[in-house]
């Protein structure tokens, strides 16, 4: 809609969203080019099926196109896009289960952000995380890092909700014991 390509490139993500809300396909394209890379990689770490991931990425940006006006400026645009993307992935799993991925368990240490999120002091957390089984860590990742609800995490990991809850409890207990 008559927006100069150079202007688009100079625009912030937030400004692009305003243009997208105003139905600018060019702005959506620019936002897509900026964010498609990490989104594909991050989704691929949760689902190994390329076609499914590509579909989910498409759904995500269609969601961005429709809901750009709903972005309230809380936090980075990338986090908002991820919120849409991971939920589209969960919805996709709900329709038809596909192979998912856990983290590989080698040499695990925890990032600073996660320590804050888990509300535990620095210190022996890395070692404590190391002691967790891959199943427990997958549950922590889905709920803490991806910010999913118990129900969504259950769909993503292909396990019952009750199992997610009990694994969360077990992970917390094990972390507490290891840190005590």
């Amino acid at each position: 809609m008559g927006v100069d390509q150079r202007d688009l490139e100079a625009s912030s993500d937030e400004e692009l969203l305003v243009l997208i809300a105003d139905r600018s396909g060019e702005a959506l394209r620019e936002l897509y080019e900026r964010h498609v890379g990490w989104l594909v990689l991050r989704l691929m770490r949760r689902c190994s099926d390329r076609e499914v991931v590509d579909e989910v990425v498409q759904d995500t940006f269609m969601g961005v196109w429709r809901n750009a006006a709903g972005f309230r400026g809380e936090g980075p645009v990338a986090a908002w896009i991820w919120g849409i993307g991971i939920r589209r992935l969960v919805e996709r799993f709900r329709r038809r289960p596909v192979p998912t991925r856990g983290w590989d368990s080698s040499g695990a240490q925890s990032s600073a952000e996660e320590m804050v999120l888990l509300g535990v002091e620095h210190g022996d957390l890395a070692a404590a995380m190391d002691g967790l089984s891959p199943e427990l860590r997958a549950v922590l990742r889905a709920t803490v890092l991806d910010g999913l609800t118990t129900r969504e995490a259950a769909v993503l990991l292909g396990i019952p909700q009750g199992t997610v809850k009990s694994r969360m409890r077990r992970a917390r207990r094990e972390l507490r014991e290891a840190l005590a």
Partner: protein
Amino acid sequence: MTWHVSPELVASYRDSASSDAASHSLELHLVECEPCRRIAAGAVESGRRDRIWAGISETVDMPKARWLEEALRRFGVNAHIARLIAMTPSVQPSWLLAVATILALAAVAASSLGPIPFLVVAPLVPVVGVAIAFGHPIDPVHEIGVASPTGGFRLVLIRASAVLMASIAISVLPGLFLREFRWMVVWLLPALVCTLLVLVISTFTHLSTAAVVVSLLWVAGVTATELAASTPVASFVGPAQLIFAGAVLGLLALLLWRRTSFERIAGR
């Protein structure tokens, strides 16, 4: 932030070779850091990026949704609201065409059966329309409703009014087959009553259930009245219109009273 990702880390992350800790850190960092996102973009081949985009751009150039939206905006409707209306399934041309066809059949039948079939069906058009407007599983407004600064109640009112107006507008043409002008207008208040009743009931239960309940009530009510009354079309003339007018006021009051429950309903 002083820590940044290297192309090597992105590559090992892509190949699922990075450790949990490195993967977590990278994911959280990419959300915040534009230059590092550019490194990540390079890890996905451009052919794949273009293929994904091709699927998106098809949807993005939706001519149908666009002409209505543009028209509404030209008439001074706020852009956000114009989009809400244009994306309502039950104001799309395909739906309206189907409705017009059914009503035209009912209107043509009026020459032999009287106006009752038309008068019974016409008020149900916005009822079904409202149910479709909020009940579609992939309806984008599902999400807007949840995250909308407009709020659930206003959203519902805007969409329901759009559906009501579209339904009435589309009924004009088939109504011409009725020959008598009054049959073209006596169903307007009943339509309003039915639509309001659906909205009120939907604050207690699922919207589609509400639509079914109202439709059954409406058909049963008209049938009973016609069977009991001494003059034909008694459900639509004389005192009946006064009752409908009273019902509109009562239901409007009820709806206002129940408005807070729409904050959740918009997402259903």
